[in-house]
């Protein structure tokens, strides 16, 4: 700590050079944070999913194939309810409001268990009571309602793209959630959807809550075993696995985006290394003088490393603060349709800090080592 002043003075000696390095690092760091956030945002659902012990039953050929209504009887039988509760029929409706661009998550869902199954949503009790009484009622997340300017009691028409019907819904309640991303949804009643579809009893997925973590593998075995030789075999998955299907659909684009992040990191190291090497070269004589005064090689290494880490850290703080303000504070998103929110996660912050420190250390490692190893006489003799 007592050398901090020295390090600071050294860093500020060539203000232009340090400034340019900090600036360059800041822009690269911004891209790194941006890429990381794009990745965490794609995985956001899976992160939240693990704690709720929810499982989904879907058709083994994929989500596009509906499940038979007969399965409900089995899922309500004692063999299943011993391990799970709050069974819900949940159909992805895939409708839009007014314009196909207004695309958002909307579901036809059994309303009676919504509160127990999706227990992280807070639905006002009177709104819930009204929903139970009104067949064409819908509840929407607060953030979604704000986005489209929806008010309580407003009538909206959803335009169906998968189902050939256009539900005319009335907003009976607005719910909130601790995770703001979950407020980007609309639920309407499954029985209303079925009525519009002429009572065809189409079920997209069945959802339920496992009674304990140990029940999950048992449920998979029981349900998938039951349907194995039927005309509609099922695949029972956890909520996390359910989300991972969509990740898998992205293909290796994620890997590629992540490796772009690595390249950015390498560029950052090159840039800092360039600066550190230039400074170290200019200070050869000075370092020799320091060592004559009794500072050891270790001290010299420390000075060079500290200066480099200082520069990269300052270069990291600026874009981190800026992106926190823009994305988490002002709730901006680079693509509102694809990412309703673009929130920087704590782990992204940790990675940004680690990347800054690490690139500072790696960039300065060789120049520091060279500076410490050079013989004092050689250093003093050298004319810069």
């Amino acid at each position, binding site marked *: 700590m007592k050398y901090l002043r020295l390090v600071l003075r050294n860093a500020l000696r060539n203000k232009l*050079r340090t400034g340019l390095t900090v600036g360059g690092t800041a822009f690269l760091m911004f891209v790194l944070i941006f890429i990381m956030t794009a990745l965490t945002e794609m995985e956001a659902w899976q992160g939240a999913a693990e704690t709720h012990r929810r499982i989904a039953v879907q058709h083994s050929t994929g989500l596009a194939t509906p499940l038979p209504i007969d399965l409900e009887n089995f899922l309500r039988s004692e063999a299943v309810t011993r391990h799970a509760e709050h069974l819900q029929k949940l159909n992805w409706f*895939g409708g839009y409001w007014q314009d196909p661009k207004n695309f958002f998550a909307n579901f036809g869902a059994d309303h009676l268990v919504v509160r127990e199954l999706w227990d992280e949503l807070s639905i006002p009790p009177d709104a819930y009571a009204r929903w139970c009484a009104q067949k064409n009622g819908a509840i929407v997340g607060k953030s979604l309602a704000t986005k489209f300017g929806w008010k309580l009691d407003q009538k909206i028409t959803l335009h169906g793209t998968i189902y050939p019907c256009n539900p005319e819904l009335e907003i009976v309640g607005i719910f909130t959630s601790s995770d703001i991303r979950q407020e980007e949804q609309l639920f309407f009643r499954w029985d209303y959807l079925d009525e519009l579809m002429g009572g065809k009893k189409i079920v997209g997925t069945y959802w339920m809550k496992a009674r304990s973590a140990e029940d999950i593998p048992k449920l998979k075995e029981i349900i998938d075993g039951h349907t194995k030789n039927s005309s509609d075999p099922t695949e029972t998955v956890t909520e996390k696995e359910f989300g991972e299907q969509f990740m898998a659909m992205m293909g290796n684009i994620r890997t590629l985006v992540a490796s772009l992040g690595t390249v950015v990191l390498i560029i950052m190291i090159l840039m800092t290394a360039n600066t550190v090497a230039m400074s170290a070269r200019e200070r050869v004589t000075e370092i020799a003088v320091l060592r004559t005064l009794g500072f050891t090689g270790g001290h010299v290494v420390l000075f060079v490393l500290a200066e480099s880490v200082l520069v990269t850290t300052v270069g990291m703080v600026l874009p981190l603060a800026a992106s926190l303000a823009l994305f988490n504070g002002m709730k901006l998103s680079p693509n509102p349709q694809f990412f309703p929110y673009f929130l920087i996660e704590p782990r992204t912050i940790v990675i940004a800090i680690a990347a800054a420190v690490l690139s500072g250390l790696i960039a300065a490692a060789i120049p520091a080592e060279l500076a410490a190893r050079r013989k004092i006489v050689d250093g003093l003799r050298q004319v810069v």
Partner: protein
Amino acid sequence: MAIPLKYNFRSIVIRWISAGMTVLGVAGVTAIFVVIFAMGIGMERTLVGTGHPRNLIVLRQGATETTSGVTRQQASDIAALEGIEKDAAGEALVSPELVVVANHPLRGGAKANLALRGVGPRGRALRGNIKVTAGRWFNPGLGEVVAGKGASGRFADLKVNDRPFIRGRSWTVVGVFEADGQAYESEVWGDIDDLRSQFKREYSSLIVRVKSDADLPRLAQVVKDDKRIQLEGKPHADYYKDQNLGAQMMKAMGFIIGFVLSIGAIFLAANTMYAAVASRTREIATMRVFGFSRLAIWFSFMLEAAFLGFCGGAVGSVASRFLFDGMTSGTANWATFSDMAFQFRVTPMLMGAGVILAMLMGIVGGFLPAFRASRMTIAHALREL
């Protein structure tokens, strides 16, 4: 008079570590820009251009082929409409089709959504660019299918003579086809009646060849307004163009990331050039004494900066071309939720754009340092140690 290029070249060689790091940094930025765009261009090539210019696709309002439904009655009503091209035998050039997706294992072991398309007898002719490259075309009624080249390469069990189990039955792959790299290559095709009886579904779409360009919007209006039909007609090419979300997203990403990274690289170039100017103060003064003008010195340093940028751009572009061009990958087509194979396309145009971008980084980064070099007063500069 201009300062000889040899001077710049030798100066770079002497400061090779610093110059090399700058070149590599610029190369990295260029490579990122080029690779993201190569993905975007690859996805775009798959979708844009798919669909014959005089084909109309008829679907349910707002639906895609995987979600749409068209009844047999609607199909025969449409086939009887005016303005539809007839083939030599006098039959309307219409193909009723059914597209379903199935979760099918990829070659690597993970699963993805495979699109299975049933086509009518005129379905192949309506595309006009389907070439069988291995095996033969399928015969109706026998559960035979042909696999697109992209699907065959990405998914398991889709080579000729394989018998994949897809959605409740096994099918026989009798051939592999190509379609100029278009979206069809990511699909498996079979006979419409085979698929319909297997999935107990109606048609999902109708592909219609119209007589003239003017018939495209006219027929689209007719199928919308006709009380018996009430469906949506779209030019087939537009249908695919509208699915191009992924590519647009990629390009937008490429612009943002490329732009911000370039600013970072400009700082890097500026740093290097400032150091170059600082270490050559006395040389600059000497050249001024020899009579080289301020402009000549400015130009000389600008040239050096641009050259560093050019080297970085060339290294980055060429490396991306070797590493990524033609690489096959796949991603979800979010409009249909089925897997779409595409190839990275590092085109010469894109490489050129990368080099120009890199030179710009050098030029912008070198501008102020070169200006500083040209502003030095001789006496002051010569005195400096």
